[in-house]
C-alpha cells in the first residue's frame, strides 16, 4: 500500500512546528527528552491511535496535522488533542477533487457512510479506501468454523509498521502468548494475510459460506415462525383446510336456502291476516264515526227539548202564580179610587155589578179563569209529552253510547291484534334474517381467511425444503473451505521465504551467535519465530530480533505485494543494547537498513529514532533522500520538538 508521510504540523500553544519527512529515510537522533519518540506517536495519533501524553504535550499541544500520500490521494489528517475523530481532507490526484470528511475512530451508534454508497464508516475504513484496498476479511472467532467475518483494521497493520521503543524487544508484534488475547489474534490474522494463508479463494468461500449460512438460518427461522403460528392458531394440514372450506360451502348453501324460505313464509303468512284485520279496523272506524255523529245529534236535541221543558215548567209556575195572585187580589176591594185616590164612600156591596165601574156581572167569569185553566191543561200535556220524548231520546242516546263503547273496545282489540301481528311477524322475520345474514358473513370471512392460509402450510414446506437444500450447499462449501484452507496453509512457500529472510537479516546485521546454518522455525499456530542451533535444541533469546523480523516481513510483503502500509517507523532499535558494547551490531543494523532502503526496500519510507546517528555512506546518500534531525532537550543549536518548552 502506497503510504508516504510528507509532513507533520504540530500546533502548540505558542508555536506551530513543521516537521518534514524524507521519501526514504528520516532520522531523528539526540539525547533523551527531546521529543523524538513523540513525533512517531503523533503520526500514530493522526492515524487513529491513542496519544501517550507527555508533560510537554499535556501543557502545550493543541492539534496535529499529518500530510501524506495514500494510494493516489494527497491526504491531510487533522486531529485535535483529545478528539475521538479525525478530520480527513484528500485530493484525488487523478480526479483533482478535494474532499473533506470527519471520520470517527471508534464505532458509533447509527453510523453514516463517510463516502456515499459505501460502507466506510470509520477512519480505518477510510484509510484502506484511500489506499486503494478493500479491508481484508478475517474470521471473528478463530476457534469456531461457523463464525462471522470481520474487517481487518488499519490499526492491526500498524503493529507491523511502527516498532515502539517500549515494546521493541519485549513484544513480538503482539504475537506472543503474553500479549493481549485480542491483539494476538488480530496480529495472527495480519501474519496470515502476509503469508498468503488468507487466500482469495478462502475468503471467497468463507463469505459464500457465511451467506449460505445466513440464508439458511433465515429460512429456518421463518419456517419455524410460520409453523408456530399455524400451530398456535390450530391450523392443520392443507387437507384439513380444504375439507373445512368444503364444509363452509355446504353451510353457506343451507343458510341461503333458509333465507329464501323465511322470505317466502313471511309473504304467505303475514299478508292475508293483516289485510283482513286492516279491513275490519277500517269498517269499525267508519261505524264509530257515524255513531259519534248520531250521539252528538241526539244530545243536541235533548238539550233543546230540555230547554223547552224548562220553558213549560216556568210557564206552569207562572200560570199557577197568576191564578193565585188574581184570586188574592180579586178578594181585596179598592178602598180608594185608583184614579183620584179619594176614599170610596158610597160603596154598596152588590153581587150584581162592579163597585167601581158599576157594570153588571154576567155569568161569564170576569177573570177568564177558564182561559188560564185551558192553558194550564195544555201546558201539562205538552210538558208530559216533552218529558217522555226526552226520556226516549236519553234511552236512545244511552244505547248508542253503549254501542259506541262496544265498538270502540272491539276496534281496540283489532288494532292491538293488528299491531301485534305486524310487529311479531316483523321481529321474528328480522331476528331470523339477521341471524342468517350473520352466519353468512361469518362463513364468508372464515372461507376467505382459510384461502389466505392455504399457501402458508405449503410455504412452511417450501421454506424447509429450501433450507434443507442450502444444508447441502453449506456442507459442500465447508468441505471446500477446509480443503482450500489446508491447501493454503500447506502452501508454505511464503513461510519458508519469511524464515530465510529473517535468518538472512539476522546474519546480515551480524547478531552474535547466529549462523547461516541455524534453523528458524515459525509455527503456523502462533507465528512466533524461534531459532534453533542445528546441533542442540536450545532456543536463543532473541534480543533485537523484532526489528529484523519486521524487516523480513516488509521484505516479504514487498515481494508478495501484500497491502502493508509503505512505511516503517522504528523507535530506538538499540534500546536494550549499548551501542558502545555492541558497536558491531549497531553498525551492522544500520548498514543493513541503509542497504535495504537504497535497494530492495527503496519504496519503503523509514522513519528512525535513535540516540545516536549512524552516518549514511556517501554511496547510498546519493541514491536516497534523507532528512536527519538532531534534537536535544537543552542545546539551542539542536532544539527539542517544542523549541520554547523548557520542561515543567
Amino acid at each position, binding site marked *: 500500500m502506497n503510504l508516504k508521510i510528507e509532513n507533520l504540523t504540530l500546533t502548540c500553544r505558542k508555536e506551530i512546528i513543521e516537521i518534514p519527512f524524507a521519501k526514504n529515510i528520516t532520522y531523528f537522533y539526540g539525547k533523551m527528552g527531546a521529543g523524538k519518540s513523540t513525533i512517531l506517536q503523533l503520526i500514530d495519533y493522526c492515524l487513529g491511535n491513542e496519544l501517550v501524553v507527555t508533560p510537554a504535550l499535556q501543557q502545550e499541544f493543541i492539534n496535529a496535522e499529518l500530510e501524506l500520500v495514500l494510494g493516489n490521494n494527497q491526504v491531510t489528517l487533522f486531529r485535535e488533542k483529545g478528539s475521538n475523530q479525525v478530520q480527513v481532507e484528500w485530493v484525488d490526484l487523478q480526479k483533482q477533487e478535494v474532499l473533506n470528511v470527519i471520520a470517527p475512530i471508534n464505532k458509533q451508534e447509527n453510523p453514516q457512510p463517510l463516502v456515499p454508497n459505501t460502507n466506510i464508516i470509520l477512519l480505518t475504513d477510510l484509510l484502506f479506501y484511500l489506499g486503494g484496498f478493500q479491508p481484508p476479511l478475517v474470521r471473528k472467532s478463530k476457534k469456531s468454523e461457523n463464525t462471522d467475518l470481520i474487517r481487518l483494521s488499519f490499526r492491526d497493520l500498524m503493529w507491523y509498521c511502527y516498532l515502539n521503543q517500549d515494546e521493541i524487544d519485549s513484544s513480538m508484534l503482539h504475537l506472543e502468548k503474553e500479549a493481549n488475547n485480542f491483539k494476538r489474534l488480530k496480529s495472527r490474522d495480519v501474519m496470515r494475510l502476509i503469508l498468503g494463508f488468507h487466500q482469495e479463494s478462502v475468503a471467497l468461500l468463507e463469505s459464500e459460506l457465511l451467506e449460505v449460512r445466513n440464508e439458511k438460518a433465515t429460512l429456518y427461522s421463518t419456517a419455524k415462525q410460520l409453523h408456530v403460528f399455524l400451530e398456535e392458531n390450530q391450523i392443520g394440514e392443507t387437507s384439513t383446510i380444504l375439507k373445512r372450506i368444503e364444509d363452509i360451502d355446504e353451510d353457506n348453501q343451507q343458510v341461503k336456502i333458509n333465507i329464501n324460505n323465511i322470505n317466502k313464509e313471511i309473504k304467505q303468512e303475514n299478508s292475508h291476516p293483516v289485510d283482513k284485520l286492516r279491513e275490519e279496523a277500517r269498517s269499525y272506524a267508519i261505524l264509530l264515526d257515524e255513531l259519534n255523529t248520531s250521539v252528538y245529534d241526539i244530545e243536541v236535541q235533548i238539550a233543546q227539548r230540555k230547554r223547552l221543558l224548562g220553558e213549560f*215548567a*216556568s210557564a206552569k209556575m207562572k200560570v199557577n202564580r197568576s191564578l193565585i195572585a188574581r184570586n188574592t187580589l180579586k178578594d*181585596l176591594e179598592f178602598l180608594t179610587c185608583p184614579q183620584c185616590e179619594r176614599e170610596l164612600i158610597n160603596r154598596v156591596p152588590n153581587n150584581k155589578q162592579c163597585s167601581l165601574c158599576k157594570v153588571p156581572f154576567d155569568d161569564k167569569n170576569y177573570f177568564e179563569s177558564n182561559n188560564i185553566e185551558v192553558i194550564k191543561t195544555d201546558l201539562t200535556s205538552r210538558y208530559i209529552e216533552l218529558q217522555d220524548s226526552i226520556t226516549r231520546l236519553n234511552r236512545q242516546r244511552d244505547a248508542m253510547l253503549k254501542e259506541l263503547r262496544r265498538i270502540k273496545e272491539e276496534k281496540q282489540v283489532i288494532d292491538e291484534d293488528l299491531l301485534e301481528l305486524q310487529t311479531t311477524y316483523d321481529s321474528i322475520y328480522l331476528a331470523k334474517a339477521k341471524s342468517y345474514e350473520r352466519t353468512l358473513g361469518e362463513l364468508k370471512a372464515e372461507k376467505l381467511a382459510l384461502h389466505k392460509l392455504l399457501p402458508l402450510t405449503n410455504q412452511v414446506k417450501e421454506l424447509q425444503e429450501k433450507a434443507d437444500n442450502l444444508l447441502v450447499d453449506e456442507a459442500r462449501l465447508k468441505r471446500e473451505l477446509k480443503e482450500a484452507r489446508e491447501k493454503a496453509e500447506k502452501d508454505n512457500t511464503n513461510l519458508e521465504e519469511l524464515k530465510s529472510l529473517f535468518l538472512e537479516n539476522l546474519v546480515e546485521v551480524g547478531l552474535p551467535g547466529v549462523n547461516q546454518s541455524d534453523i528458524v522455525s515459525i509455527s503456523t499456530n502462533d507465528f512466533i519465530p524461534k531459532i534453533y542451533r542445528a546441533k542442540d535444541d536450545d532456543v536463543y533469546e532473541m534480543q533485537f530480533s523484532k526489528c529484523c523480523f519486521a524487516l523480513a516481513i516488509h521484505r516479504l510483503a514487498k515481494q508478495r505485494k501484500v497491502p502493508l502500509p509503505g512505511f516503517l517507523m522504528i523507535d530506538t532499535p538499540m534500546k536494550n543494547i549499548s551501542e558502545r558494547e555492541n558497536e558491531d551490531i549497531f553498525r551492522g543494523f544500520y548498514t543493513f537498513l541503509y542497504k535495504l532502503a537504497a535497494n530492495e526496500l527503496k519504496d519503503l519510507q523509514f522513519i528512525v529514532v535513535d540516540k545516536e546517528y549512524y552516518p549514511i555512506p556517501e554511496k547510498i546518500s546519493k541514491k536516497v533522500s534523507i532528512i536527519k534531525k538532531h534534537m536535544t532537550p537543552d542545546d539551542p543549536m539542536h532544539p527539542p520538538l517544542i523549541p520554547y518548552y523548557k520542561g515543567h
Partner: protein
Amino acid sequence: MDQSLLERIIRLDENDEINIIRILILIDKMAGRNQKQTIDGINKLVKLDFLLRYPVALERALMKLKKDKDIPKIDIQVYERESVETNLMHFNYGPWDSRYRRFLTILEAKGLIAYIISGKTVNVSITQTGHKTVEDISSFSEFQDYVIRSGLIKRHFGPYSSKKLMNFFYEVFPEMVTMKQGEEIKI
C-alpha cells in the same frame, strides 16, 4: 212550543197580578218584623225587585259579595236559568218600566201599602192588610221562593242607597252598561 202558547205565556207575564203580588211580598219583607221600615224611593224598590225577579242576577250579586253561605238558599230552578224570560231580562230591567207606578197605585188603592212623602223622596211601607195578605199568600208553595229571596235581598241590600245599588249593579253586570237596547243578554 207553538206560537200561540208562547204568546199566551208572554201575555201571562204581562199580567199585573203576579208583578203586584211579587212587589207586595218584597215591600213586606223590607218592612221587617215590626213592619215599620220603609223603602226609600221607588228607584231603589225597582232595583231590589230586579234582583227578586231574576234569581240569576241575585246569585251573581251574592257571589260578588262572597256570600257563599246564602247562595244555595236562592234555590234557582233549572227553568229559571234557561227560560226565555231570563234571556229577556234586560227589557224588563230598570226604572224605565212605567208599569211600576200603576202597580204601586193599585197596591195603595187596595190599602196594601202606604206612601210617606219625605221631602222629595217617596218612602213605601206595608199596611196591616198588606202584611196579612202576604202572610196568606206565603202559604202557597208557588210563592215560597219570592219570600225566601226577598229575605235575602233585605239582609244584603237593605241598607244600600239607590245610588250605591246603581254603582254596584254596573260593577256586577258590566254588560248592562255597554248593552244596546233590545239585545239579548245571558247572565
